């Protein structure tokens, strides 16, 4: 099962290395990892999506992460109501014959075209990973030339509903 773990860390040299190292040392599988500054100077936020077999492993992961000297806070937010977003850039073959068709797919997904070439387009899409995957599946037949994904970043929602274990946003 997929779990989303967020970490706030001191932005010291080597901190990301220590964290990714821990995943490989303990044989944990990271699906994606994204890093960036926070509103506080010197503090970064890391969001990891991991694929684990059981709850015991996720408990170990969070404990091991927590133990790292430069890690301030670790949270497994998978069971909370979260807003999770990922961004993908997709360069797709788009000769005049299929271009309109592609445009018609872009709209319902609220994706946008950010670069137009003679034979190809670059599409930007944001949303939850599932949505991005669905979009990629639809686009694939047209010929994806390049694909880059940022990995998920996520926040717990401000108000948590009590009984709903998972509550992903639609868009």
């Amino acid at each position, binding site marked *: 099962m997929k779990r989303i773990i967020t970490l706030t860390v001191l932005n010291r040299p*080597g901190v990301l290395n*220590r964290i990714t190292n821990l995943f490989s040392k303990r044989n944990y599988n990271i699906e994606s990892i994204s890093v960036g500054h926070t509103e506080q100077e010197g503090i970064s936020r890391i969001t990891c999506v991991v694929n684990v077999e059981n709850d015991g492993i996720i408990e170990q992961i969070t404990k091991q992460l927590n133990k790292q000297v430069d*890690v*301030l806070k670790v949270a497994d937010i998978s069971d909370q109501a979260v807003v999770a977003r990922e961004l993908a850039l997709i360069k797709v073959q788009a000769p005049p014959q299929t271009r309109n068709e592609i445009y018609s797919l872009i709209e319902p997904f609220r994706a946008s075209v950010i670069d137009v070439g003679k034979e190809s387009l670059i599409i930007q899409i944001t949303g939850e990973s599932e949505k991005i995957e669905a979009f990629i599946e639809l686009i694939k037949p047209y010929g994806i030339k390049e694909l880059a994904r940022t990995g998920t970043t996520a926040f717990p929602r401000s108000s948590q509903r009590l009984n709903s274990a998972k509550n992903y946003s639609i868009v």
Partner: protein
Amino acid sequence: MLQEAAFTEVKAEKQTANGADLLLDSLKKEKVEVIFGYPGGAVLPIYDKIYDCDIFHVLPRHEQGGIHAAEGYARISGKAGVVIATSGPGATNIVTGLADAMMDSLPLVVFTGQVATGVIGTDAFQEADILGITTPITKYNCQVRNIEDIPRIVKEAFHIATTGRPGPVLIDFPKDIAAGTGEAPVDPEISLPGYQPTIEPNYLQIRKLTEAVSRAKKPVILAGAGVLFAKASHLLQEYAQQQNIPVVNTLLGLGSFPASHPLSLGLAGMHGCYTANMALYECDLLINIGARFDDRLTGNLKHFAPNATVAHVDIDPAEIGKNVPTAIPIVGDAGEALKMLIKQEGKKPEHSQWMEKLEGWKKEYPYWYEEEGSVLKPQRVMEMLYEQTNGDAIVVTDVGQHQMWAAQYYPFKNPDRWVTSGGLGTMGFGLPAAIGAQIAEPSARVVAVLGDAGFQMSTQELAVIRELNLPVKIAIFNNQSLGMVRQWQQIFYEERYAHSKIPSQPSFVKLADAYDIKAYQITSEAEAKEILEQVMENDEPVLLDFRIAENENVYPMIAPGKGLHEMVGVKK
């Protein structure tokens, strides 16, 4: 005027100095007594200051020897062992020691030289990415980037290494940082917002354990090295007596509970005794204090303590529930937990049947070996070493069969008398670790129990023993083979002895002679007795080459994949 006053005030809190001076000053502030170091290009600025510094410096003959000596020092003194190595090969030579200290939770503060900041990343002469290499095997590591950070970083390093679950910390020191001058605060504040080990356990969990004890019919305590790090042996004894609970030890926890105590069941694990292993197998309440349920202790987890409620006291929350499902997790210092437990004065368990059963096992299944005429038996040698030292020597071992015999046949009375490489099982550890132990406690009797193969991984450190005239008694259990490997090949690989018999060996007596250390080859019990009486009391180093039975095996034994109840070789 005002400005000037402000200026002088700042001056008083800061000092201008070169990086190496700041480093050595910081070490003095931490009351460092000894540095195990080896010079080279990148640390020359530091060594130039060491030249005038009054901290005792030991020059090992290999950096790996230096870091193992620091481990031995740390284990016995309870303080951080300090190591300096140069960049590149000096730094990579200490990797094994870091991994060893990480596994066995030994506090080390290690400084490696690094090429100058301007050329880092260019594959400069003797450059190695030591931070990258050591990240998984250090509790923490970092590189000094600014001279003014030195006092703070050193202070933080000692704090991290010695608090919580101890461990090795590595500081990478670029040459220009050591050589350059800068202004640094004299008394820096440490800033580690992400590092706050839990010391005080949760009261509710302590209550839960007290209740579980009162209901238990077959309780047992498993005492690990955490008890030793917490300096809590006396508290463990008090608690075990108060509640009348028997105690088994892990390999690294030996000494945390007196072996001679009626409640002591002895060593558990792969080569532990029948009683201790069966107690773990059959118990209904297992109270783990400061042990990490290592696989050499538990055997096959499927069969481990199948009927027990498990309580686990550990300062490292990540250890709790890692290998064994735990009903009563107690995060905190072993000493604090024991104090709280003692204060509860809970109802004692009603377990007379259990205690009788354990007593019966103790009588029925002691360690055993067979006499073989005039052949010198390793177990007998260990017994004689015990007798000759009154059982209160510091025993340091290497890794292999001799290590297990030492654990079995040297029943420790006191804490912190036992230095061995448990988690990593590092051959070559013993001789240098004995040097460190002797430096930590100059007046103690230190016996280094080594295999003939492991000794040859650190032979060069004999030079240090001579140079410092350390009265270490080196006992080589010479079976002319990689004994433990040979044993496994005999039992699990149809006696196909691939490279486990050493084809040729130097004369250890002549070798010791070359280092100007007195040495004896000993082939019989009578000889052993005579020579031990002669050499064990004096203040000279000595090397004893015990020619022991070549094909002796360590028993009892739990084969890999088996449970603790599936021991073989429990009886003659």
